[in-house]
């Protein structure tokens, strides 16, 4: 510890300030990423946005009444304003039948407008710059220090760290309650956990967190720290604990990266933090392993490619049988390039070989094709016998279904058939190939 402090003291003041800026932003990111994850899960992203605007008048009144820049009166005022906004919007929705989004919009814009006007009216008494409240002032807040353990620690780092610990404690203590009321409010209520109380507790914590983060990133961009990490983490995982940890990590990267980039380009820290957070989200949205857009597209391609392969194999099988040349021709429904690609792939997998003037099935390829044709004909039999579909309605349906039938399922279908050795067109139903 001492060694660390000495090393730190040896750094140049500019580097020290930058480091502190990063640490402050990371502390803010910790608490907001934790709570923001719950907002994302509860589909209350816009409530977070609304609260971050609505706390402004509470902040100003708290400041005016205490007359100092002490954190606690401002926190209290902001928490009250945030809860009042939540309550009023809910009240408007219920008792005055204003649509939910509209109710939120009316209340939070009014609160915010009131806050801005209060700041302007009392500008002489309030040492509170609208710009600072709106956009934050990370760089300057790192300079306002207090001496602890031989180190000059910025006050805002202490307050943000305290709020982060508070939020961590809140999440830890109410872990079960928050989880149940987030995923299943009705179940929570039947278990005797008041979803309403949990909701207001969460809203209150969000309000406190938002105010504490004001100095770091400002009222407008705290929403980036609240929502973006949670949403990014939600793209990676389905487990709550993993999601919270991931969200905090995402928030830290945004905080550190944003601060450093802001120094590099000599621009606003808050702006760069949200840009970095946005870049992380964009990356996750594109490339997350399961829920990313690229993965989605790849899954779609893989699926389509499997169907092309299977159709190629099945056509060769039918040609070998020599019974369904006309049908087999009609089956050439994929693009030539796709079929060519499928043949190359199948050859590499040793399911096809080159034969005189064309292609032939190998043992493995024949087994796969046989299972497919078997599924196809069994399903035709099923549709004909059980659903009494006419003969010319069978092929299209079976041609789709064949790609989804497992051997076990095919066996179950076979059990229900009267005519098990041939399909309704009179073609032989091959047995399940031995593996």
């Amino acid at each position, binding site marked *: 510890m001492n060694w660390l402090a000495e090393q730190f003291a040896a750094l140049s003041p500019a580097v020290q300030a930058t480091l502190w800026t990063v640490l402050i932003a990371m502390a803010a990111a910790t608490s907001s990423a934790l709570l923001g994850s719950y907002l994302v899960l509860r589909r209350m*992203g816009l409530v977070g946005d609304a609260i971050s605007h609505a706390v402004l008048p509470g902040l100003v009144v708290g400041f005016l009444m205490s007359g100092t820049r002490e954190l606690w009166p401002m926190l209290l005022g902001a928490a009250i304003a945030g809860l009042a906004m939540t309550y009023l919007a809910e009240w408007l929705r219920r008792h005055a039948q204003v649509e939910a989004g509209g109710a939120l919009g009316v209340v939070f*814009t009014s609160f915010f407008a009131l806050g801005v006007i209060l700041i302007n009216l009392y500008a002489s008494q309030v040492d509170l710059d609208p710009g600072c409240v709106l956009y934050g002032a990370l760089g300057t807040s790192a300079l306002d220090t207090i001496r602890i353990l031989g180190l000059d620690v910025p006050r805002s780092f202490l307050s943000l760290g305290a709020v982060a610990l508070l939020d961590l404690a809140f999440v830890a203590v109410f872990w079960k309650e928050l989880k149940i009321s987030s995923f299943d409010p009705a179940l929570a209520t039947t278990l005797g956990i008041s979803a309403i109380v949990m909701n207001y507790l969460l809203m209150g914590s969000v309000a406190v967190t938002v105010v504490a983060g004001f100095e770091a990133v400002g009222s407008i961009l705290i929403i980036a720290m609240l929502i973006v990490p949670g*949403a990014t983490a939600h*793209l990676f995982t389905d487990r709550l604990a993993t999601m919270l940890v991931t969200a905090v990590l995402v928030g830290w990267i945004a905080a550190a990266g944003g601060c450093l980039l802001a120094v590099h380009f000599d621009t606003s820290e808050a*702006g760069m933090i949200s840009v970095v957070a946005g870049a992380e989200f964009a990356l996750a949205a594109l490339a997350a392993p399961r829920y990313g857009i690229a993965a989605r597209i790849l899954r779609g391609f893989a699926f389509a490619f499997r169907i092309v392969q299977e159709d190629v194999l099945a056509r060769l099988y039918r040609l070998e049988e020599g019974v369904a040349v006309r049908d087999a021709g009609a089956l050439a429904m994929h693009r030539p390039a796709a079929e060519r690609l499928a043949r190359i792939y199948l050859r590499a997998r040793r399911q096809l070989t080159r034969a005189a003037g064309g292609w032939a099935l190998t043992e493995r390829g024949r087994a796969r094709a046989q299972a497919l044709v078997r599924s196809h004909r069994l399903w035709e039999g099923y549709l004909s016998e059980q659903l009494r579909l006419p003969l010319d309605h069978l092929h299209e349906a079976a041609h789709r279904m064949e790609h989804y039938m497992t051997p076990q399922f095919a066996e179950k279908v076979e059990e229900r058939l009267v005519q098990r050795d041939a399909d309704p067109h009179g073609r032989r139903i091959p047995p399940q190939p031995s593996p």
Partner: protein
Amino acid sequence: MPFLEYNTAIVLGGTTLLGFASGVIGVLGLLRRRALLGDALAHATLPGICLAFLLFGRQFGALLFGALVTGIAGVALVALLSRYTRIKEDANIGIVLSVFFGGGLALSTYIQKNSVDAAQAGINGFILGRTAGMVQADLIFICTAAVAVCFVVLLFYKEFKLLCFDPDFAAVEGWPVVRLDFLLMLLLAVTVVIGLPAVGIVLMVAMLIVPPAAARFWVAGLAPMMWLAGAFGALTGAAGSLTSTYAADLPAGPVIVLCGSALFLISLLFAPRRGILARARDRRRWRKRRAIRGFLRILYEASEAALPERAALPIADLLGRFPGRAREAEALVAHAARAGWLERAESEERAALRRSAPRAAAAAEGDDAVRLTAAGLQKAAEAARIHRLWQHYLRTSAHIDRDIVDPDAEEIESILPRAVLAQLEEDLKNAGTLPGGGAPVRALAGLPRELAT
């Protein structure tokens, strides 16, 4: 100095027209449940403004065009993210809003530090709104765009109406729903962008939400709502810009928004049918009507034993039967007397006292008993009949414990089918408890039987 300087008059005209356009288009946004999308749109304009400034300098038209481009890009991104990822629309709005605005902020800070041009103030004015800096050319631009927006809404009125009230039906009928939605977004974007110089990015969404939400309290139906929201918007814009002109320290946006909030508050309180005062009055009336019915039933039950003779009912006895407070019961007695349902009477004790000691009886003040009048008996029998039919129904058909439901509150004729009602009356008649001496089923005054079936 004249009351309105030329410049002020122009600003006033611009904000009024802007308010009208945003009120009209806001109605569509609110009904399509896209209210808060306007917030994302407004915030997403900032990077466009800054980029346009970097590329073209401070040209009003170029700045607004840049704003329009990134604003629409932001909204499109919200739609794409909601469609292709698992993240829900609310979070996507928050993400686009904060990231675009953050990017814009970084750009504007960069411009501030690196541009020799003092026109950076022009960008800051966009954030909270600043009407003072506008010149005539800017306002002509704003007015043209506002008129164009209103004109397009008029042109596509029928299509938008269908889109707002039944998009599925519109799709089934073959309307180009997606393209109409895009047109609506485009109109929203244009409105937001022309509103930015006056109201500012942060609060522009209020111009789209508050006037329509306020108008909803007064009227129903799309066309009246649009007109009223437009009028409210115009009023808000005018009042806000006048105030901020004469109190120059205040940024225009918040002042305009607070004017809108005041209008909303007035609507919320005083609107004739949907306002909360009107609702509270309706609730009070309903409670009173219910109390009167309950009391009438008690009067009938108290008189029932002596029927067809109308017995004198001692007031003390009535108070004992009444479940609520004595004060309420006394008020109800007074109300029934005024309505001509009760007449003064004498209890048997008092009559006996009068016979034995006339002087003592005369000394006792007031009446101690009442009696139903003929009209009152009819009313009371009706109330009791409804009560018993309903109670009987609930016990036999719905198996609901009679403690749970308050039978005085319900209009049985308007709820139950006629055949069920007849059966219930038959049951009560056989049990000898049908009020009105087993008279045939009658409708309550003003309630046609057909309604009940």
